């Protein structure tokens, strides 16, 4: 759906059509629009807490475009807004989590915002302790392999989290069993305030892949298109039974860690300004415009449509009811069913 009549050829080398490129742009921009809305709501006192993924969206959309929605599995973390969107969660779903309403499909308002999950979309429920999810992804991949489902499991975390013991144990297991598993580290150089130099003994986390007998690939997360081919190759390998892949995306964290954090306490103005150059959204936009895939009209149309969706989601979510006290004891165990359903 490029504006020029002839295909741009931009995605040819990596096997993406102009239509797919526009779709990817739409997702990056939508993720950003939702994310910005969350912060606006927080500043306005309408939601108490935000944690989000500005700066990470490009890598996620680039990588996730290689996966099969409704078939493969995502095991997300709190910066995975864009990844969840690519797998079918809607802006309404995400805002319902943000407002913690009863109809929030992720947790019915039980979890903090940003802890997404959806059984309908093969997105496993997120929890807060970092890195635990990598073992769940390995387990999903093990089940896919044993059951012969041809599914691939992909999981994400920050470079800080990647130092947790669970990561070592999961990669070792995935390596031994050649699991259909893809590990994505979103390296934004900080774990809250702790800079990479104090959280990581190496510059590139992906060098650790060699210790588990799997390829380690480094991609520039500001380059959406560049993130796709290694992911496509990882998925191919996984489906072919060739094993797991470790992808490190170098990204930038454009916001504070969360709404509870003030990053000016530990990042200089100069650094913050410089980092804005690594924002994937304007770069992807410029790339698509240069190639003629995107023009003013399409860009405006996408912006308007995204805004409409975000407005709709905000209004919908804010208007939904809170969960009620009579549901609070439900689902500790499988046998805890609502009284109505049991009657």
């Amino acid at each position: 759906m490029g504006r020029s009549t002839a295909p741009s050829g931009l995605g040819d080398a990596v096997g993406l059509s102009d239509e797919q490129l526009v779709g990817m742009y739409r997702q990056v921009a939508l993720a950003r629009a939702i994310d910005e809305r969350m912060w606006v709501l927080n500043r306005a006192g309408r939601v108490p807490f935000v944690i989000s993924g500005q700066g990470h969206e490009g890598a996620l959309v680039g990588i996730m475009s290689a996966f099969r929605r409704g078939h493969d599995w995502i095991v997300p973390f709190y910066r995975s807004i864009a990844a969840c969107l690519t797998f079918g969660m809607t802006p309404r779903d995400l805002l319902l989590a943000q407002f913690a309403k009863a109809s929030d499909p992720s947790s019915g308002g039980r979890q903090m915002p940003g802890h997404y999950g959806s059984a309908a979309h093969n997105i496993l429920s997120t929890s807060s302790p970092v890195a635990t999810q990598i073992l769940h992804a390995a387990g999903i991949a093990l089940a896919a392999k044993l059951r012969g489902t041809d599914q691939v499991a992909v999981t994400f975390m920050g470079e800080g989290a990647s130092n947790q013991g669970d990561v070592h144990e999961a990669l070792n297991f995935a390596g031994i069993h050649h699991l259909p598993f893809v590990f994505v580290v979103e390296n934004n150089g900080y774990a809250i305030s702790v800079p990479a130099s104090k959280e990581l003994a190496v510059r590139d986390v992906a060098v650790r892949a060699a210790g588990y007998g799997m390829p380690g690939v480094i991609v520039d997360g500001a380059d959406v298109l560049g993130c796709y081919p290694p992911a496509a190759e990882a998925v191919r390998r996984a489906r072919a039974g060739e094993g797991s892949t470790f992808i490190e995306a170098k990204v930038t964290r454009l916001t504070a860690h969360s709404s509870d954090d003030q990053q000016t306490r530990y990042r200089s103005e100069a650094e913050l300004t410089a980092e804005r150059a690594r924002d994937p959204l304007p770069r992807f936009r410029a790339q698509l415009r240069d190639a003629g895939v995107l023009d003013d009209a399409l860009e405006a149309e996408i912006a308007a449509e995204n805004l409409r969706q975000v407005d709709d989601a905000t209004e919908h979510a804010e208007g939904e009811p809170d969960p009620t006290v009579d549901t609070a004891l439900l689902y500790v165990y499988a046998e805890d069913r609502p009284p109505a359903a049991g009657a």
Partner: protein
Amino acid sequence: MATRTFIESIRETLAGEMRRDPATIVLGEDVGRKGGVFLATDGLYAEFGESRVIDTPLTESMIVGVSIGAAANGLRPIAEIQFADFIFPAFNQILSEAARMRYRSNNAFGCPITIRAPYGGGVHGALHHSQSVEAFFTHIPGLKVVVPSTPHDARGLLRSAIRDDDPVLFFEHKKLYRSVRGDVPDREYTIPLGSAAVARPGTQITVVAYGLMTHYALEAADTVDDEGISVEVIDLRSLRPLDRGTLLESVRKTGKCLIVYEDNRFGGYGAEVAAIVAEEAFDYLDGSITRLAGPDVPGVPYNHVLEDWFMVSPAKIADAIRTLAAY
């Protein structure tokens, strides 16, 4: 009806459940070719192959974490932790993940996994091969915790655990594995989680126990019976959910309650039992609620003199019964 040792009963139950449901897998350290360090999984590797009986790396967090994920994608994992003492590297996965998956996802995801682990002292295991760890898990909403004491119960409870849609911890006392035999019916029975058994009826004192302590309590009850003290022994079997009905009915009847557990006394599982009895049977009591438990030292020492000192024994239970009877 066949006679089985405790461990034979477990082994056959595992095999039976694996035959019944192709979604079941067994995973853990040395569970494959070796058949487990206690041989609880002996023969499974030969029958079901290495894809369903997985010799894992020496990494407990991985064993549980991978089980959680595998369960989310359609399997029904039965994980073995080689000794209960080594379950703690997996504590975060059990507490923060397995136990919460259903609640935190508002029922979108469940976590049907069973974690088996041999526990308990009196086996020359010293500090790190003798622990009773149940109290750390019975405190966690979202988990179920089972401690069988007979080959019969081990079978019925293990079946229920494996078929349960939530995470179940299944603790097996190492000392029972080969020392206890009993009848195991051939039919496909299950014992619901959350049902205690009156292991011995009596009228004057209720002794509450589980696992190895059930056997010791029964021995002690025999001893004091000759002295004219009638003891009712309640074998809890399932610690969470707890069968409050059976417990309270017995205490209300006898008016006296002795709780026996092998674990360290302070903050152990018996504290909760005592608290429930104190709260819900207060008006029926005619004696202090008494606990007999392991001393508050960090683990069972190795040397046999110190180990004997640590362990609750039938003689110590009999003494505690006599004291309470005289209250």
